[in-house]
């Protein structure tokens, strides 16, 4: 009897841990899945971009230098000339207004930690804060 009650919290802990890791792997997969669905057409599966038309995400200095703008770029798109790894791009990226902050966080974390990138991850709070800055664009 006593043994059982002792074991109970342990079992609960293991279960919680399992669901937690499950949850993390799912999130990881969601980032990859959304990237494949919405981004890979242009930025390619390996994040290499397309010559001077579409900037790379693999090894892109932009991801570091403009970290604070990334959530807004995904939500509202990007036009005008930008410089990535010393090259000019000016093609225009569409907005993804239907993606929510959780999805954007997962995509960004996939981008930041794949294609040879090892940039710091985003928390959902950080993404939320970034999106708050460009919220006026949604009302247009």
């Amino acid at each position, binding site marked *: 009897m006593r043994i059982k009650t002792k074991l109970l919290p342990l079992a609960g802990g293991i279960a919680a841990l399992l669901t937690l890791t499950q949850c993390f792997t799912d999130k990881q997969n969601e980032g990859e899945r959304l990237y494949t669905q919405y981004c890979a*057409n242009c930025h390619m599966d390996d994040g290499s971009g*397309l010559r*001077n*038309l*579409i900037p790379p995400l693999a090894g892109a200095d932009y991801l570091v230098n403009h970290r604070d703008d990334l959530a807004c770029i995904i939500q509202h798109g990007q036009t005008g000339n930008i410089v990535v790894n010393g090259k000019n791009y000016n*093609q225009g990226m*569409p907005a993804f207004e239907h993606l929510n902050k959780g999805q954007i966080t997962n995509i960004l974390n996939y981008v930041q930690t794949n294609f040879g990138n090892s940039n710091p991850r985003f928390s959902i709070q950080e993404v939320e804060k970034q999106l708050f800055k460009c919220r006026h664009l949604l009302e247009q």
Partner: protein
Amino acid sequence: MLCTLLLSISALGWQGCSDKSAETGDLPILGERQLVQREVDGQQVTDTVYHRIPDFAFINQDSQVVTSLTVQDKVYVTDFFFTTCPTICPKMKSQMLRVYEEFKDEPRLMLLSHTIDPKHDTVAVLRDYADRLQVSSDKWHFVTGEKDSIYSIAMQYMVTALEDEEEPGGFVHSGAFVLVDQNRHVRGIYDGTDPAQVDRLIRDIPALLPKKKKKKDADKN
């Protein structure tokens, strides 16, 4: 109706792109064909008239006119796209670049990309696009023209291209790469977003290019 037609033709195309046919140079001629009866020395003979791409005239990224004469005696690969396409076009272009690089030094092969958004994709826009892709305009023509002519030639190549406001970017179009021979017969249709099918295209193209005379023969005197 149109859909089933396209599907069956594509099926034919894929069948024609097997390894075996590439080896033998035996790529089928795709599209509708007509049987025409005629009399030769009192005997009835039946000729097959194959589907052939009609004459065309478009303008390329250098403002040069590109016509059926431009592709005379050439094998060419053609597709339909638009520069602001939010979906499959960049993938198609990255795959077309593979074909470009593979046959860079083969003057008998050309690439012909039609915009299906001529209103936006002017010569200047196409020029910028080709420059950014870093490709040469003698080999890879990006053409624009009358909207109706572009959409009707797409049908001749058996490629879907339609305007549709509901679609992302405003157009529906297939990602097909169409392989056309020196007689403007369609010899293969490949999914230009699928690297495996583009591998097959790259293997099929040499089957349409007659082997060059051996150097030994040419040097004989």
